[in-house]
């Protein structure tokens, strides 16, 4: 014990003798040594075109005038390809898993095995259908979106996005690297929150963590894409529908970036005041992506990984949905009780009871919001020709049928727009909340990161609804 303290005391004394700038001094000597060794073993045989080509590309994609438009164009192209490409395979998978397999499984468990109706209900109409729905709605867009996104990433484009956004984030009082963690959030918010570790300053790291939820994550892209196709795309003539829908999704994503900046700015002006740290961002060389390997790894790592997560969460959620639709109190199911009670004030916000209930059931994973909404809508409106009983998710083989159901459920363009906004602005999923808690170690900041987006969601939806009703 004594020796330990002596050692530390000796170190303190010596530090005092040497002076304060030892840290810089050591770093300088390391740099000197490194440059020495490099000069002995590295031979640079003249500059080549490759370097110049990189510099030339960077001059354009990171320029003041073209940086942001190019970024928007690339994003919009990726969404457009995703929207246009996933309709047909979605319908195909749904026809197999839902239309053909579901009745077969139902008959097998209910009739062949002779199980009671509630057992068949929970297992087949609840768990299985939820899973089938998630696979058919999510697999095709993800299988297109992720490889495209990964190709951009492999090529080296993401750091350029950060470079373009850096200034905006610094003006908001946040760290420029927050642009990178934000980009990670477009894949998964939990991953984005962990990625905030690259930020040194605790203040700026907290800003990055709290605002990451404003990056649309892949659990929410399908919601955005589907609702945009149904409600926004339908407003445009058919040949423009795809582009308009993609534009709407880009707008929501940009709105997310805007909120990210706005909240960073207000927090850094109030509770999280402090200096902005400087850093150097290295722009890696452009590399031609290894096409097939990228395709393979993005399918395995991202698409199947995310899909698997969605399925794991969808199965219990399916059970919950079925139960809320079938457990009755006073002749009315729990779900309907909730929807009826929530409807009046939800509609005040331009939403409806179904959406609120769906977001409560879907707290574990945003992926299952759409299937839940559809099922609840059918149940609440008692649309006769679709579905096969309360709490049963049903077959839908096209976007237009989905559209028909939602319209029957009283949905308007306003509901669609507000659902897109609410999908952007609501509490993070349970995984992300847990990750935020683990990363910050603070209940307070976890609560802030959870509640602020939800409040913002209600406020924004309210104003949009009032404005909309004023105009129409």
């Amino acid at each position, binding site marked *: 014990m004594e*020796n*330990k303290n*002596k*050692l*530390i005391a*000796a*170190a*303190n004394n*010596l*530090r005092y003798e*040497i002076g304060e700038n*030892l*840290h810089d*001094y*050591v*770093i300088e*000597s*390391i*740099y000197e*040594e*490194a*440059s020495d*060794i*490099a000069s*002995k*073993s*590295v*031979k*640079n*045989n*003249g500059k*080549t075109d*490759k*370097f110049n080509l990189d510099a030339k590309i960077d001059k354009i994609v990171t320029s003041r005038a073209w940086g942001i438009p190019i970024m928007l164009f690339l994003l919009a192209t990726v969404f457009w390809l995703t929207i246009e490409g996933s309709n047909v395979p979605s319908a195909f998978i749904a026809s197999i898993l839902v239309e053909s397999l579901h009745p077969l499984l139902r008959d097998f468990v209910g009739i062949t095995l002779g199980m009671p109706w509630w057992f068949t209900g929970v297992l087949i109409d609840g768990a299985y259908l939820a899973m089938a729905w998630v696979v058919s709605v999510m697999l095709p867009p993800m299988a297109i979106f992720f490889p495209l996104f*990964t190709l951009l*990433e*492999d*090529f*080296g484009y*993401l*750091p350029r996005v950060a470079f373009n956004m850096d200034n905006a984030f610094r003006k908001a009082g946040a760290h420029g*690297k927050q642009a*990178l963690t934000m980009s990670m959030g477009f894949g998964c918010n939990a991953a984005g929150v*962990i*990625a905030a*570790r*690259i*930020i*040194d300053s605790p203040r700026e*790291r907290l800003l990055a963590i709290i605002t990451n939820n404003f990056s649309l994550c892949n659990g929410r892209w399908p919601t955005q894409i589907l609702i945009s196709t149904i409600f926004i795309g339908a407003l445009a003539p058919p040949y423009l529908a795809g582009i308009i829908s993609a534009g709407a999704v880009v707008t929501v994503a940009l709105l997310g970036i805007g909120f990210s900046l706005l909240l960073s700015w207000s927090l850094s002006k109030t509770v999280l005041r402090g200096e902005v740290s400087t850093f150097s*961002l*290295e722009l*890696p*060389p452009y*590399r031609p992506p*290894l096409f097939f390997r990228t395709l393979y*790894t993005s399918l*395995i*790592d*991202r698409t199947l990984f995310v899909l698997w997560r969605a399925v794991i969460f969808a199965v219990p959620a399916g059970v919950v949905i079925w139960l809320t639709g079938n457990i009755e109190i006073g002749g009315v199911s729990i779900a309907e009780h909730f929807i009826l009670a929530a409807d009046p004030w939800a509609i005040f916000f331009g939403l409806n009871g179904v959406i609120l209930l769906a977001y409560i059931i879907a707290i574990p994973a945003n992926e299952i919001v759409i299937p839940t909404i559809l099922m609840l809508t059918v149940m609440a409106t008692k649309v006769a020709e679709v579905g096969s009983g309360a709490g049963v998710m049903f077959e839908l083989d096209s976007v237009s049928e989905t559209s028909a159901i939602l319209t029957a459920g009283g949905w308007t363009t306003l509901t669609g727009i507000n659902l897109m906004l609410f999908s952007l602005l609501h509490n993070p999923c349970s995984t992300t909340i847990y990750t935020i808690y683990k990363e910050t170690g603070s209940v307070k900041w976890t609560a802030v990161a959870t509640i602020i987006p939800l409040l913002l969601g209600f406020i924004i939806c309210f104003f949009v609804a009032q404005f909309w009703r004023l105009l129409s």
Partner: protein
Amino acid sequence: MTENLKASACDVCEVNNRASLKRMGLNIEKFDFIVALAGNPNTGKSTVFNALTGLRQHTGNWPGKTVARAEGGFEYNDKMFKIVDLPGTYSLLSTSTDEEIARNFILFGKPDVTVIVADATRLERNLNLVLQVLEITDKAVLCVNLIDEAERHNVEIDIRSLSKELGIPVVAASARSNKGISELLNAVFQVVTGNFICKPKRISKLSGKVSKAIRSLTTMIENEYPGVPNPRWIALRLLEGDQRIIDAIKSGEIIELTGSNPQAVV
């Protein structure tokens, strides 16, 4: 130095090495050696990691992709290796979480060898980190990755002279296309089995006053913790007032370092 590695033609023979590498993926319950994977951001650490373990950790062309430790395993020459992919950092001297994860693992995780992955096209900057790692640990291998890209840029790297300067095995590689992985495995094996004794380069260009202070603290540390593998580095950190190291001394965590790593610093 590199002669040690090229003991016989068979040792570096591609076929021979492939046959003795068995990728174990996540199966890392038992292992003989721990390998740490360090390096600057975006130098291809995760690609090297994947090439060795057969895992498919997500890789991407941007700095700062790996923020947490990833672990995997492989078997080589009948020995089991656990490999830990550390977050990429530019230095080990600041206080950000990712740098601390990397530094603490190299120090307290007691890896049997630290593989430093460097970008051949930006070698000078990467050497800063290499030198910092060599201040902490004796057993290291430098993997000069992206060598094909450097060649395209007409950058020529003298691997042998680099190895001589740094005092550790140096391997040129292009992990993306699996080039140089066999040589890397061999170098790792030579270091962990003690066939190659590293004589790592230490910072020598320090002023008299600083050197003297370091020397006197180093002696104190050696007396207090006989067998600690890196007294000089600890002395330097203490002089800088590094709280993590001060805490490690106060809590006695530093004593654990003296255990399984009996090799003293030259």
